[in-house]
């Protein structure tokens, strides 16, 4: 049994020893370096580009939008974002001009000699300004996309509510801060093929973007993922921009072109988590049952649409949290501003929604004087219940289990009544959050993607997986090899991977949406099962037995003949299977579980095939002199379906929780006139190892019948609940509820002052 074991990371050794080659480790003899010249203003007409004297312009190659042969777009949803600005810039840092030079220094120097003049236009920099639509920057109302989801009769239900609780919550930008910054090398081959290699999550997204840019057929664009140092969504759509730039320069200068961002550039140029303003109005019975809810979410999309509609959609669907409410209306919109486009980030709209909904639970529990636990127990979803999109939950619903487990393991009830030592100026607090996250693409998304994967026998008699799902540090290769090994009676080390190259591997869909294990893992399992069947069939005909009699075990194929057990090694069997054809490869494609229904128009039905559930307890100590928060302990319980590799599953949960705690406590982008003031690790504050205490991580296995061995998607879930649990703990400690994150000492102080004034 290898599934369920914490086998070592497949690529761990190479990464630890430094053998792994990231894009910046590739050096070609004739390589040139690309540099991007960006807008310094938020909204303006470009009136001129001057190339200053004092630089020898013959030593470099320049490219602008006029060099784009097909469509000047970063192909995604609306195709509204130009790869290079033409006459208008819509945000600071928008790419305008590209420079290629034989050295990085020369490219930098050239960039310093470019002077761009602008005629400034009024800039829309906040959600409020965008909503007022005084200055129109997208359509008539600045709204990229809006959704409404309704169930029951909200107005009537509010009439009968005994208590109404209303509050508005604010969340800011968050940077993904993968360790390896964005980097791409592009090569334009003499036959017109464009070759892209680099750091990315979704090779086929880059593939499509480059095809659109140059009007090329599939086979003329080849995209290869290099070892990638983290993504967190930040390398979902954004690498298409860097790849486009590098490709354009490579075509023009005739050399391979490398663009690797410095941290400061990566920080300002790349997408971030959408800021949001979320309003909750909730009607309840005196004893705390939800009977009516109105939730309005507004996300700041930035200057271009990118993936915003999909991010918002997920936020809308998760807006209530894992609770029942018979009468509910959720409205959501994502608006345009003259700030850098926001995009995918682990959680994809849910961390924003979850902070608001769980803090609202905290506020309700205070207002009604009901314990946070009781409030959750009264309203939580159970098997058989309906979500806000009208989806009935019929399997793998771990709500009760995760809540019970986290309470027990953290000793929540006893600790909540914990008394302070009289004289200390530190206050202890404990907070709870309870949440869920749908696995895979929303609604009909997976049906459209039809993710594929394949497995094949190798000449050495082992097995190779062919998939476009990327390893970005989360463990794709390890768990896929465990799944295949399990199916075929092999060890994970007997399983290898085809290079993640669009000319070699099928499109498994993007590495996003908590779908890699749950969806593509399932496809890989199906492909392995077909391989097994095919091998059994071929061996059976040679051995003159029934295919169904052949067992795959201990790296052997076994069957009985005349009462005797015959065994042949897997490698030998593989060789025999390929003796005639020379190869054996099986491909599988995803299909949704039976009975799944989704209506894109009314936004109702089965939004996701399954949800993963979790609950967090965070304990803090707040210094009443400085309002600084020390996190004492974090306990999480997560219904993962099945942990294919428990250590990796725990790693996902712990890492995601740290990111969530950073979101809740520290991480804030500082802006002035559309410019980022803190684009460095010294002033964009993320937690250090000293800020994070020991974590207790409880895994609960509530199998999902259509996942590989029961596994559900848990990549994003741990990003959702940390912030509200933390801020609830702060509220428990100081008595004031902070409604905007990060809950910095400054905000905690203000919330306490406000409370004192009100009292």
């Amino acid at each position, binding site marked *: 049994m290898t599934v369920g074991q914490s086998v070592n990371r497949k690529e761990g050794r190479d990464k630890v020893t430094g053998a792994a080659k990231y894009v910046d480790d590739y050096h070609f003899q004739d390589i040139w370096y690309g540099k991007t010249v960006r807008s310094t203003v938020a909204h303006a007409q470009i009136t001129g580009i001057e190339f200053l004297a004092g630089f020898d312009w013959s030593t470099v190659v320049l490219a602008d939008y006029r060099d784009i042969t097909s469509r000047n777009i970063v192909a995604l949803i609306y195709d509204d974002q130009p790869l290079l600005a033409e006459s208008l810039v819509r945000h600071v840092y928008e790419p305008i001009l590209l420079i290629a030079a034989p050295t990085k220094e020369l490219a930098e120097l050239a960039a310093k000699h470019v002077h761009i003049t602008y005629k400034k236009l009024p800039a829309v920099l906040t959600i409020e300004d965008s909503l007022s639509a005084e200055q129109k920057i997208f359509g008539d109302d600045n709204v990229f996309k809006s959704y409404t989801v309704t169930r029951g009769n909200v107005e009537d239900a509010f009439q009968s509510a005994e208590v109404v609780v209303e509050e508005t919550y604010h969340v800011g930008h968050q940077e993904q801060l993968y360790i390896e910054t964005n980097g791409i090398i592009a090569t334009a081959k003499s036959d017109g093929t464009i070759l892209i290699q680099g750091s990315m999550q979704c090779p086929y997204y880059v593939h499509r973007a480059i095809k659109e840019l140059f009007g090329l057929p599939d086979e003329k664009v080849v995209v290869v993922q290099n070892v990638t140092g983290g993504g967190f969504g930040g390398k979902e759509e954004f690498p298409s921009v860097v790849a486009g730039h590098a490709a354009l320069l490579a075509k023009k200068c005739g050399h391979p072109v490398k663009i690797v961002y410095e941290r*400061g550039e990566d920080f300002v140029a790349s997408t971030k988590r959408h800021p949001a303003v979320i309003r909750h109005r909730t009607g309840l019975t005196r004893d705390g049952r939800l009977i009516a809810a109105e939730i309005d979410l507004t996300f700041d999309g930035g200057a271009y649409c990118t993936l915003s509609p999909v991010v918002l959609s997920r936020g809308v669907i998760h807006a209530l949290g894992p609770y029942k409410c018979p009468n509910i209306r959720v409205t959501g919109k994502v608006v345009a501003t003259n700030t850098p486009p926001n995009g995918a980030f682990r959680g994809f709209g849910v961390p924003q929604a979850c902070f608001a909904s769980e803090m609202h639970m905290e506020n309700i529990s205070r207002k009604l004087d009901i314990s946070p636990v009781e409030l959750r127990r009264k309203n939580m979803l159970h098997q058989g219940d309906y979500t806000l999109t009208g989806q009935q939950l019929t399997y793998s619903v771990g709500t009760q289990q995760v809540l019970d487990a986290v309470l027990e393991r953290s000793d929540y009830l006893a600790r909540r009544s914990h008394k302070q030592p009289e*004289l200390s*100026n530190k206050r202890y607090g404990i907070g709870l959050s309870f949440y869920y996250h749908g696995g895979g693409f929303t609604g009909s998304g997976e049906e459209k993607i039809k993710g594929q994967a394949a497995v094949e026998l190798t000449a050495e008699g082992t097995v190779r997986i062919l998939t476009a799902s990327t390893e970005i540090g989360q463990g794709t290769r390890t768990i896929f090899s465990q799944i295949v090994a399990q199916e075929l009676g092999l060890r994970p080390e007997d399983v290898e991977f085809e290079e993640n190259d669009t000319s070699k591997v099928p499109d498994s869909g993007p590495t996003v949406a908590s779908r890699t294990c749950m969806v593509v893992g399932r496809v890989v399992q199906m492909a392995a099962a077909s391989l097994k069947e095919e091998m059994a069939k071929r061996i059976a005909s040679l051995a003159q037995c029934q295919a169904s009699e052949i067992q795959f075990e201990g790296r052997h194929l076994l069957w009985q003949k005349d009462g005797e057990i015959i065994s042949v090694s897997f490698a030998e069997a593989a060789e025999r299977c390929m003796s005639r054809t020379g190869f054996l490869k099986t491909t599988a494609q995803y299909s949704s579980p039976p009975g799944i229904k989704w209506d894109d128009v009314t936004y109702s039905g089965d939004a996701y095939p399954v949800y993963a559930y979790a609950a967090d307890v965070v304990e803090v100590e707040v210094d009443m*002199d*400085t*309002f*600084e928060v*020390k996190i004492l302990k974090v306990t999480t319980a997560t219904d993962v379906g099945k942990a294919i590799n428990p250590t990796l599953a725990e790693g996902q949960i712990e890492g995601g929780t740290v990111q969530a705690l950073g979101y809740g406590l*520290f991480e804030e982008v*500082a802006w002035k006139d559309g410019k980022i*003031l*803190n684009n*460095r*690790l*010294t*002033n964009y*504050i993320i*937690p*250090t190892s*000293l*800020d994070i205490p020991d974590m207790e991580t409880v895994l609960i296995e509530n199998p999902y019948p259509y996942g590989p061995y029961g596994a559900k998607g848990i990549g994003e879930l741990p990003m959702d609940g940390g912030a509200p649990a933390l801020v609830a703990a702060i509220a428990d400690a100081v008595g004031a509820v902070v409604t905007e994150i990060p809950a910095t*000492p*400054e905000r905690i*102080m203000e919330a306490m002052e406000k409370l004192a004034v009100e009292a």
Partner: protein
Amino acid sequence: MNKVYSPKELSEAFQILNSYQPLKIVAGGTDLMVGYNSGMPVPDQLLNLWKLDELRHIDEYPSLLKIGALCTYTQLIKDERVRKYAPTLVDAAKTIGAMQIQNRGTLGGNIVNASPAGDCLPVLAAFDAVIEIGSVRGLRQVPFTDFYTGYRQTVLAEDEMVTNILLPKQKTEESAKFYKVGTRAAQAISKVMMSVRASIDAQKCVKEIAIAVGSVAPTVIRTRLTEMAIRGLIIDESLIATARKEMMEEVRPITDIRSNEHYRRTVSGNLIAKFLRENYLA
């Protein structure tokens, strides 16, 4: 190409300073390299102090410690005499960056870099340290509280460098504290820091007090009005309230990307209140 001078003798360093201007002094480089990496022009000539072992000594005198400008934080943290006679300097050193920076960053660099957020600076101000400055013209001494002439400006002439720090020992009857309010547990630039040194008798009377604060004014400052409001009085609730109020009035904080004025002012008041409260309870 940049020229880097790496003298082994102090006198040689003085000669270089005298002869090769303009020139930039590099000690640990932990402030300078950050600047250069973010686009500050790298000067043509650099004077690398790293080989000047003469500036790595820590000597004990009856009433003071003489600390070489090139002493690293790790050295200060480990040194028995510094631990015994300047425990608040050790406390401050321990909050700087993390281990790598503590191994490389120097006390002299912290002083001459002249950031209002330099963590050791309030300690030096509260303890009335004296800065020894050297050049071909000889050595001179300047009280630390006169060392800064404005935001990121010092009394150093072009050909001068800091050679030693003369730090009065903490007396057994004195109680002292260093408080740093950063943004996280390590690698944090201070929003507010305070160093207090006081003699408090058995009746809880504050016989002497020196208070220095950082990150709340253009340079590290001594809050002498607050000191005056406390000196000679017995600690009680009302003195604590007065001290808090005085401090909040005396500091001159600003709002920047790390924090805001109101917070810095409030917390400065709270920290002096905390010091008095803790001594009152002690």
